[in-house]
């Protein structure tokens, strides 16, 4: 197991971009090489060492055995774990936009809040956010009609607007509340929201499952109550209590399923 520790020594006034700070790119690099790794600050290329103190513990032959631990105020560090394929990243702070976006494997833990676009278009792996996320978590990027297609996102607090827009696969678990337009245009995958959900969730969804354990504002008219079930078994997992099963969105002849706890 190799652990690369990055401790922020200087905060940038504009965001730093961390596309290049991935286990698969750094696992076989020496301390000097990691220090010289290029990161972007705006459109300027700068070495990682300008902003971070780097230390290494242990060795590994495989990127899967490599972990990157990032400390300091990361609220101005974008694209942590962007397009990551394996290994582990732990960010011990709030993070900026695009954390875990387009990731296809590995494990990211954010011990804080995440800005917008967390886990967008991810295809695999696990993104765990101990705080809240803002808008477009697990969604598609602008224009794209294929959002998150695999992997898992767990958010321990709340999620912002347009959660899982155009989601086609994978799992999202929000342990807190969720703002408007959750799961719109969904055509696959599963969202579980333990808290309250604001309106317009599931709009134009064609397939997929949304499970809501809290209160909802109101249902869109395109959803029809099919039945109410006690302790339903949803996608192989038993939920305790009485749930209403709604199907829709009928406006697009959708066959999505929304379970709402009564």
């Amino acid at each position: 197991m190799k652990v690369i520790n990055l401790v922020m020594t200087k905060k940038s006034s504009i965001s730093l971009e961390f596309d290049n700070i991935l286990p698969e790119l750094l696992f076989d690099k020496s301390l000097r090489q990691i220090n010289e790794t290029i990161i972007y600050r705006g459109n300027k290329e700068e070495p990682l060492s300008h902003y971070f103190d780097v230390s290494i513990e242990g060795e590994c032959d495989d990127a899967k055995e490599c972990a990157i631990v990032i400390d300091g105020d990361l609220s101005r560090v974008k694209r942590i774990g962007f397009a990551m394929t394996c290994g582990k990243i732990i960010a011990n702070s709030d993070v900026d936009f695009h954390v875990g976006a387009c990731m296809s494997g590995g494990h990211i833990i954010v011990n804080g809040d995440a800005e917008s676009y967390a886990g967008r278009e991810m295809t695999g792996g696990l993104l765990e956010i101990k705080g809240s996320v803002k808008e477009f978590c697990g969604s598609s990027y602008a224009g794209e009609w294929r959002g998150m297609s695999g992997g898992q996102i767990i958010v321990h607090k709340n999620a912002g607007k347009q959660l899982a827009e155009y989601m086609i696969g994978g799992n999202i678990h929000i342990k807190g509340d969720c703002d408007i337009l959750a799961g719109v245009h969904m055509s696959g995958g599963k969202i579980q929201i333990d808290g309250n959900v604001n309106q317009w969730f599931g709009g134009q969804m064609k397939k997929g499952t949304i499970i809501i354990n809290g209160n909802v504002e109101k249902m869109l008219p395109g959803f029809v109550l099919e039945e109410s079930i006690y302790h339903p078994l949803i996608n192989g997992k038993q939920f305790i209590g009485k749930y209403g099963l709604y199907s829709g969105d009928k406006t697009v002849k959708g066959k999505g399923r929304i379970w709402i706890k009564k």
Partner: protein
Amino acid sequence: MEYILKNGVVFDPKNDIDGEQMDIFIKDNVIVDKVSSKAKKLDVSGKLVMPGGVDLHSHIAGPKLSIGRLYRPEDIRKGIKPASKNDISGFEAGFSLPTCPTIGYRYTKMGYTTVTEAAVPPLEAKHAHEEINSIPNLDIPTLTLFGNNWFMLKYVKEKRFDDLKVFISKWLKLAKGYGIKIVNPCGSEAWGWGKNVDGLDDPEPHWGVTGREVIQALTEVNEKLGLPHSVHVHTNDLGHPGNYATTLETFDCVKHIKKNENVDRNQIMHCTHVQFHAYKGTSWRDVSSGASELIDYINKNDHLTCDVGQITFDETTTMTADAPMEYDLFRLTGLKWANKDIEVETASGLIPSIYSSHAPVSVLQWAVGLEFFMGVKDPWKIVLTTDSPNGGPFIRYPRIISWLMSQEKLQDMLDNEVHNWATNRTDLGTYDREYSWNEIATITRAGPAKILGLTDRGHLGVGAKADVSVYDIDVDKFDCTLKSNSETLENKLLNSKYTIKDGEILVKDGNIVKLVNSNHIWCNVLGLENEEKVLIDRIKPEFNKYYTIKYENYGVNDHYIQPDTRMDVNYGGEL
């Protein structure tokens, strides 16, 4: 500046040079037979040397591109290449809808120097020419859309062919257009009424004119005016199973029209992206290839030429003035789509398209395109295009060349990669043709230049425009017929060793070393000025009634088209 390209292996079909090791002499912007001792020598010993590439049908400028870019931001994220500090060119972005500069960079790197923008409505011509000003390094003729224009329909209905002739002459000047483009004649206009036309003889609902009448009238006018290019026709019923019959009728409907004797081309009609017009059957369930009938017709007749519109198995964007067809595609795929009405002139539409090697219909379309390449015997009658970006982006031309040059590669694809509709429903498997470099030079250079009537390019004879492309391919050693070499061949054709345009080196070793403004090539008919003035005075009230802009603000002003490469055409009176 003088250059000598030393000892290259030259393919120049127009001058019957077929792989001869020789020197090419360049002085200023033309090919010459000798240069002074001060000429700079470029050693290209054994390397592939061809005239600069000529693309006669591509969509690179105009409002449809802009709508596409707005509508598909996800496409711009593909193909991003940051500019390095040493690059004279900027960053690249986009795949099927690249940014304007990216279009210039990529074509130039591929060795292309002339690219035709194939569909510009006159109303949007300013926009198209402005975009051309942002595309570097190319010569760009634009084809002007006339096939659904109200004035044209009116003149055809009232059989006022002399007025039509003057109208076309004037409107080419206004739009700074190079030739006549006809897209789904009467069908795009019918779309304004929520309809389409079915075949060549189905009348448009308002004017009662048929596609046959439009094509015949515009072809006659084209020949009377003596425009360098023939009419450029996107026939009715694009993409409909069973449409091959309409295409055959279209081929035949102008056969009786006499070609103008002063033009260099052989054809009186160019049918574009024939692949999309060559299907048998009654639905997508029983669809099959209708290419063999069309190929047979093309082989037996000399009055028409075609380009293919090859499918390349990519996620791309279709864009066309054939708006009802785009709506059909939306009904088929359910993907996001856009339509735009161009008042008085045409319609247009746009939708993403995903061609997969596992999808039966995509594979059938792919195989039909290749059938045309294999079946049309005379390479001067067929041109390599993808109808970029409709069948695939233009950066796939090298890949298509690698398919055409290797039967082994093609057979491997048929056996292992593509859905079995390619073999079950087309005749592609029955051909064993492999293209030679001479034939490739014909379908990508000499042929399209001749079809377009651009006599100064597409060849390397003395006096030709000094547009030359050199590729890092040792012609005698590199075996293009091997499947294992296909990828290497594609990469080498994507990044030329030298691209020289107008005697200036624009690309060296795959890197752009110079950027120049693109030339706007347009046709200026001389001899009808008085008639044009009379016509404009007469139709101005109608114009100002139907258009939302005034006539005075309509045409493309000269300052839009710098540098201007005007081609004067002398109208010689009736045939």
